[in-house]
């Protein structure tokens, strides 16, 4: 007999069959995405808490607690036994921790659901929090910061430095994984107490998708009612300090290229009136990993300075490894970000100038009719690729719940994009974007010298190993003199060893 692999139907992508079940508590207010002929079942169990709830001095405790639930023993089973049981099913479970949400994910073939489910639910309800697991996972997290983030991936290091810089002094202002010292300060007792306070039955929303039967939802609702009691207390949305001028963080590190991120917080969230207009602008200006984007054309395509140049109006973690945004990073505070992949140190000053100059140009002059029309056309179909799997669409559905969007997000996105005018987009750009007040984070070598060059606004002419068209060279002469106007007191240099300490 032929095995059918379920696929998203266009009607599902566009119109969305998003069902909501509401009754007595949060666990019953499920986000459901049934796909009848999908032979797999996807779980996203959303707790309305994230790393912003980490107490001061214990940053990283949400991530550590959640990781111990997913990668540790339960009261019934050792972690070794759990791995042994899950192994033949090619199934696993895991967790995504962001500032305001923690989502436990699992996916299994329906052939194996009945063997899988008891392990998954047990991990949520009865984590053992053993000393052995605590030591292993905490050590891995510390190594992840001390060794991997600081020394193995300058792109992610630069982005992490930028995010902390933008949200400095707010509950968003630390890595989800915390810092080396905060992780060292967390005790197993802290983790156990944190679980009982935050991973509660009043704090959970069930996300379920794929070829499940209704009895599974009932079972989940009944089982999750056994979570600890607790009252949802959400911290307020972060209020980043107003920016004045351009501020620079230089992370000093021995490296062969400079990673650059800059931007600022914005007050526009998914679903807001201006969100769609900014989404269209952003797609033209810097669609992630897309050669049609304007920044990419200016810096990579015309000048061959790096591997890619992108911009964002929502957080986009793991950009070096993903084509489309991962779901479940919904927040009440978002940012505008420009990300230049590493450029040679001799080009860093020029590349930064080029990117900010392009931002200034579009803020001052707006998009052209031609660019607007082409981007509108592009997004209409490109949106179909945002989430093509049941698991991905379920993630988007949860994010829609977070933002109070009742319709299927991709359908709504296409509808809103189609309804935009050039005037809408340019008005939204003027309302929300600017170029005078920026946070700029760069991972580089010779930071002192670079700081002096930035502060003195010295010209940054570039030479190329290869010939370039005259129009590029003419524009270069403008870019190399473009005033950045960064005061020396606004430039901070931090050795990489001190990052996230």
């Amino acid at each position, binding site marked *: 007999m032929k095995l059918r692999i379920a696929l998203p139907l266009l009607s599902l992508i566009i119109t969305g069959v998003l069902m909501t079940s509401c009754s007595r508590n949060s666990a019953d207010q499920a986000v459901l995405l049934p796909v009848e002929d999908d032979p797999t079942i996807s779980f996203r169990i959303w707790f309305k808490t994230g790393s912003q709830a980490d107490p001061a001095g214990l940053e990283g405790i949400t991530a550590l607690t959640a990781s111990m639930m997913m990668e540790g023993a339960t009261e019934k089973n050792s972690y070794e036994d759990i791995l042994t049981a899950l192994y033949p099913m090619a199934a696993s479970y895991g967790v995504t921790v962001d500032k305001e949400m923690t989502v436990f994910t699992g996916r299994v073939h329906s052939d194996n659901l009945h063997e899988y489910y008891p392990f998954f639910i047990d991990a949520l309800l009865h984590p053992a929090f053993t000393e052995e697991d605590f030591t292993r996972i905490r050590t891995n997290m510390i190594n992840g910061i001390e060794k991997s983030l600081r020394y193995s991936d300058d792109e992610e290091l630069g982005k992490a430095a930028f995010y902390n810089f933008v949200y400095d002094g707010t509950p968003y202002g630390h890595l989800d994984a915390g810092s080396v010292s905060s992780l060292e300060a967390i005790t197993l007792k802290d983790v156990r107490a944190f679980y009982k306070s935050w991973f509660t039955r009043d704090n959970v929303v069930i996300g379920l998708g794929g070829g499940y039967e209704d009895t599974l939802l009932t079972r989940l609702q009944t089982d999750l009612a056994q979570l600890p009691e607790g009252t949802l207390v959400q911290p307020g949305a972060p209020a980043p300090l107003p920016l004045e001028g351009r501020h620079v963080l230089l992370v000093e590190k021995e490296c062969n290229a400079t990673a650059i991120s800059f931007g600022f917080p914005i007050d526009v969230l998914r679903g807001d009136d201006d969100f769609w207009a900014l989404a269209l602008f952003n797609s033209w200006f810097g669609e992630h990993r897309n050669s049609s984007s304007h920044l990419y054309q200016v810096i990579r395509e015309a000048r061959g300075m790096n591997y890619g140049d992108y911009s964002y109006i929502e957080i986009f973690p793991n950009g070096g490894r993903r084509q489309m945004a991962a779901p479940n990073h919904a927040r009440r505070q978002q940012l505008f970000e420009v990300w230049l*992949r590493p450029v040679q140190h001799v080009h860093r000053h020029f590349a930064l100038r080029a990117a900010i100059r392009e931002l200034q140009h579009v803020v001052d002059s707006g998009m052209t009719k031609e660019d607007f029309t082409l981007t509108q056309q592009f997004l209409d*179909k*490109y949106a179909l690729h945002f989430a093509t799997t049941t698991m991905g669409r379920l993630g988007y559905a949860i994010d829609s719940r977070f933002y109070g969007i009742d319709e299927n997000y991709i359908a709504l996105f296409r509808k809103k994009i189609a309804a935009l005018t050039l005037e809408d987009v340019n008005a939204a750009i003027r309302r929300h974007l600017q170029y005078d007040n920026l946070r700029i984070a760069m991972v580089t070598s010779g930071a002192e010298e670079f700081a002096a060059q930035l502060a003195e606004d010295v010209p940054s002419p570039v030479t190329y190993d*290869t010939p370039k068209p005259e129009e590029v060279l003419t524009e270069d002469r403008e870019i190399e003199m473009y005033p950045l106007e960064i005061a020396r007191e606004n430039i901070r240099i931090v050795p990489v060893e001190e990052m996230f300490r």
Partner: protein
Amino acid sequence: MKHILFCLLALVLGGGSLMAERGGDGAFPYDYRLETLDNGLSVIMVPMSAGGLMSYYSIVRTGARDEYEKGKSGFAHFFEHMMFRGTKNYPAELYDRMVTEMGADANAYTTDDYTAYHLSFASEDLETVVKLESDRFQFLEYEEAAFQTEAGAVYGEYRKNRSNPWSVLFEELMETAFTRHTYGHTTIGYEADIKRMPGMYEYSKEFFSRYYRPDNVVLVLVGDFNTGRALDLIRSYYADWQPGYTEPVITPEPEQTAERRVSVSYDGKTLPLMVMSYKSPAMDADDRIAVAGSMLGELLFGENSEIYRTLVLKEQKLQFIGADFGFNRDPKLWSIYAMIKNEGDIPMVRQEIDRTIARYLDAPVSAAQLDAVKKRLKYSFLMNLDTPDKVAGGLARFVALTGGIEVVDTLYAMYDRITPDDIRAAIERYLSADRRTIATLTGRN
């Protein structure tokens, strides 16, 4: 009923194309249709319900393996970049604009054995995609200045990768493990060669002429589309593409007869890394012992293994251990990877890997352990076939290594037949110390 209809006579007579159809009752769960045009271009079509979307992969059976000339490492990857630089009919700006208008998700990647160009898009745009892809594969044309500028972007990619210690370790590993074969360099290539790329404009035309030929390319179409119409389009747009693939002159790697070791210093902080790599056989799904060998990584070093439990979970000496025992077009490497928490434990980890291998020679793997791996392979495969892009992407390596996808069924059927004795035979054949290279990397801690 499974039925394969090979029109061999037509092929022998040269008067038609090779065609096959089959039902999805093997490991691969979909019906598919194969077609080979007169010029040698193979087409694999897998219709599936996909909400009006489809994926279109052009797989060139040329990768870093084919870079046999000195100073040309990394060229297959560089050339992949040049394929986006346009033709007379569709200059780069127009190509970009048309892909943008379609809202397609388009990209490409290069591996050791092949290069894949892929687009996912609404099925209604199929003709435009066939038109664009057939055009650039036949008529690619770019100026020297554009060629040189793109070399800068490739160097940027190299720099990006270089901040990862695994990249540094792999470059040394491959160079040590291979003395003659082109697998001795990584896909991105040596920095010195990348720096010389801007001067290789004429060579790039030669590269295109040698390898971008229909008899070296396979199209894979997956998703919501009509196979008859797709074939008509492909015949119409690709028919004039001239065959003429020139095989690269690849020197076989001599048999390795003694263990090799290499130590690498990393200019940054990192946990120590170790890769223990054994010479592996080329892809051969009919070779029972080779297929058993490809299961050893999961069996001996997977998340369910004894060494994982002991060194990762219990004693916590390792941040992780894992293995990659996949197949390549030519004999390459089967590798065990470890990230070690303390440099002083490197010898111990080496010994534990040896002990693990020796243990399975002394006491054969249990039937239950073997069944667990077989079941995992099956479900892992099935659960990753849920979008056209994942199906096409998942088939790409099989296509590149064998020219088709029949091997999928053969391989999974062979997995089912593997016994504990086959596993033992595979360990004896492949996991002996004289066939291995051990590479370690330590940082400035």
